[in-house]
């Protein structure tokens, strides 16, 4: 006899964990399947975690959640060849009892979250890859097949939280293959270092943290960004670009990361640190227009598998957790009303998403991915001209300021033309308004 659950959740990332926990907490009979040897073994994140969505799911998470540092300062840097222009925002108000953002180490959070799911009564099986969705004669999803012997399991609903590759939805025909311009490849390293050095170099005390988001020459004119985050006893450094750009280029991602680590303004910050892991991951960057069909008869998709990532604001795991929670709440409501998890009823999940920040934010930035892709000057010409302008401005050399202004203006016009500059400004404003 085939075992049957109220719900099967595939994957133990942020979205799958949020779904499984919410379901288990309400007393539903939930099975979570994870292909890694432990929860988090296959997950990669920058990573920054925003408190708000986790707080909705586990209000007292701060009591034992293994976060790293709460973020008190955000830096945004534009790198030239040997220089940078940056903005910093730092506030002591971020030192509150309930910090808003934390740096995290993904695997630590996943292990902690999984324990919460088991405590709530959810059943979790690791080292198990789901190979197929099982459908009945009408096409309704009624369960999954795994790579374990006799690995057929049934459920009223299957929640796919299987990440950016979303193989199951693709194989079943629920989703198209990822387009190279809609997905970025990011590589990162974790560098262990004396916490005192972190505090000295970044001006921190206790568990305060700084994050640096980086754009500029290091992506070699490709659409992409880099980052440097402070953890408790380590730094995380990474860089990512659109796969369509990597495909046309000739520089491997690990070489790009090495160039970033050796950049004259980055190197002193990471000097003396020991690399302990090298990771790579794809990031869904297509935005609103790339969001696939999100539900059907007996199935839902959440998190990265649903392309829920706000590239403009670098938010992902909070969208993942929110979508996992909303999927679970939809199932709970149907269960309580005695209704089946068919496509008509699961449409309530899409309604919840549309009414939330997830779809509202993605919709707001729906044109941004296309504009970035078609306007490479944001990643090539601008970093060069801006840093050169700053260099001229801050070099005291007996040239009068009026002449400097003229030269700086000329350099911009030379790179882009007046119409180009105005056009770029309009495009950017339209894309983010």
């Amino acid at each position: 006899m085939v075992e049957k659950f109220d719900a099967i959740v595939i994957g133990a990332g942020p979205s799958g964990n949020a779904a499984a926990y919410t379901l288990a907490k309400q007393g539903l009979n939930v099975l979570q399947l994870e292909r890694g040897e432990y929860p988090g073994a296959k997950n990669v994140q920058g990573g920054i975690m925003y408190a708000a969505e986790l707080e909705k799911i586990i209000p007292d998470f701060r009591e034992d959640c293994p976060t790293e540092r709460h973020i008190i300062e955000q830096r945004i840097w534009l790198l030239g060849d040997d220089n940078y222009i940056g903005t910093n925002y730092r506030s002591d108000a971020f030192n509150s009892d309930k910090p808003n953002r934390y740096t995290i180490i993904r695997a630590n959070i996943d292990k902690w979250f999984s324990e919460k799911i088991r405590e709530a009564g959810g059943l979790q099986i690791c080292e198990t890859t789901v190979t197929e969705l099982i459908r009945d004669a009408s096409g309704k999803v009624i369960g999954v097949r795994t790579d374990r012997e006799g690995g057929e399991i049934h459920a009223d609903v299957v929640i796919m939280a299987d990440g950016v590759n979303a193989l199951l939805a693709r194989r079943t025909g629920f989703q198209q293959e990822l387009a190279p311009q809609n997905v970025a490849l990011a590589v990162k390293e974790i560098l262990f270092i004396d916490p005192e050095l972190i505090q000295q170099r970044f001006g921190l005390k206790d568990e305060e943290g700084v994050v640096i988001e980086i754009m500029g020459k290091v992506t070699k004119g490709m659409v992409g960004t880099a980052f440097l985050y402070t953890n408790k006893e380590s730094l995380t450094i990474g860089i990512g670009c659109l796969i369509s750009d990597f495909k046309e280029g000739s520089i491997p991602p690990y070489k790009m990361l090495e160039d970033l680590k050796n950049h004259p303004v980055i190197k002193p910050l990471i000097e003396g640190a020991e690399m302990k892991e090298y990771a790579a991951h794809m990031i869904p960057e297509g935005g609103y227009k790339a969001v696939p069909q999100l539900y059907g008869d007996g199935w839902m998709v959440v998190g990265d598998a649903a392309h829920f990532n706000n590239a403009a604001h670098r938010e992902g795991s909070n969208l993942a957790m929110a979508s996992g929670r909303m999927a679970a709440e939809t199932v709970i409501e149907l269960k309580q009303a005695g209704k089946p998890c068919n496509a008509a009823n699961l449409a309530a999940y899409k309604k919840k998403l549309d009414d939330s920040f997830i779809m509202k934010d993605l919709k707001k930035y729906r044109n941004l991915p296309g504009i970035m892709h078609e306007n490479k000057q944001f990643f090539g010409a601008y970093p060069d001209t801006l840093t050169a302008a700053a260099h001229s401005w801050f070099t005291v050399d007996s040239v009068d300021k009026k002449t400097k202004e003229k030269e700086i203006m000329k350099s911009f016009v030379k790179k882009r033309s007046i119409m180009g500059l105005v056009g770029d400004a309009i495009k950017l404003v339209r894309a983010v308004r």
Partner: protein
Amino acid sequence: MSIVVKIEEKLYQNRYIVDESRPHIQIRNDAVCKSCESQACTVCCPAACYTKNETGSVTLATDGCLECGTCRVVCQDKENIQWDYPRGGYGISYKFG
């Protein structure tokens, strides 16, 4: 700035549970790689699993694979990569992620 990157040194830090003689990714047809102008997989793979070989085709070694899926995406026009996740419990096992 020219920096030599030894990808093996990076991958050496990672924990892998290798599924001996059961590669989860396979090249479907050698001839298609030979006729592929870009051989983008040899540049894009973050673990350098794909290398151009002396016959003008591409050799694949999946032991260092980070399971990101980039090769599948770059080769989708040729559809010459049979991409799967490793069996449950095998493959990369991130300590930090």
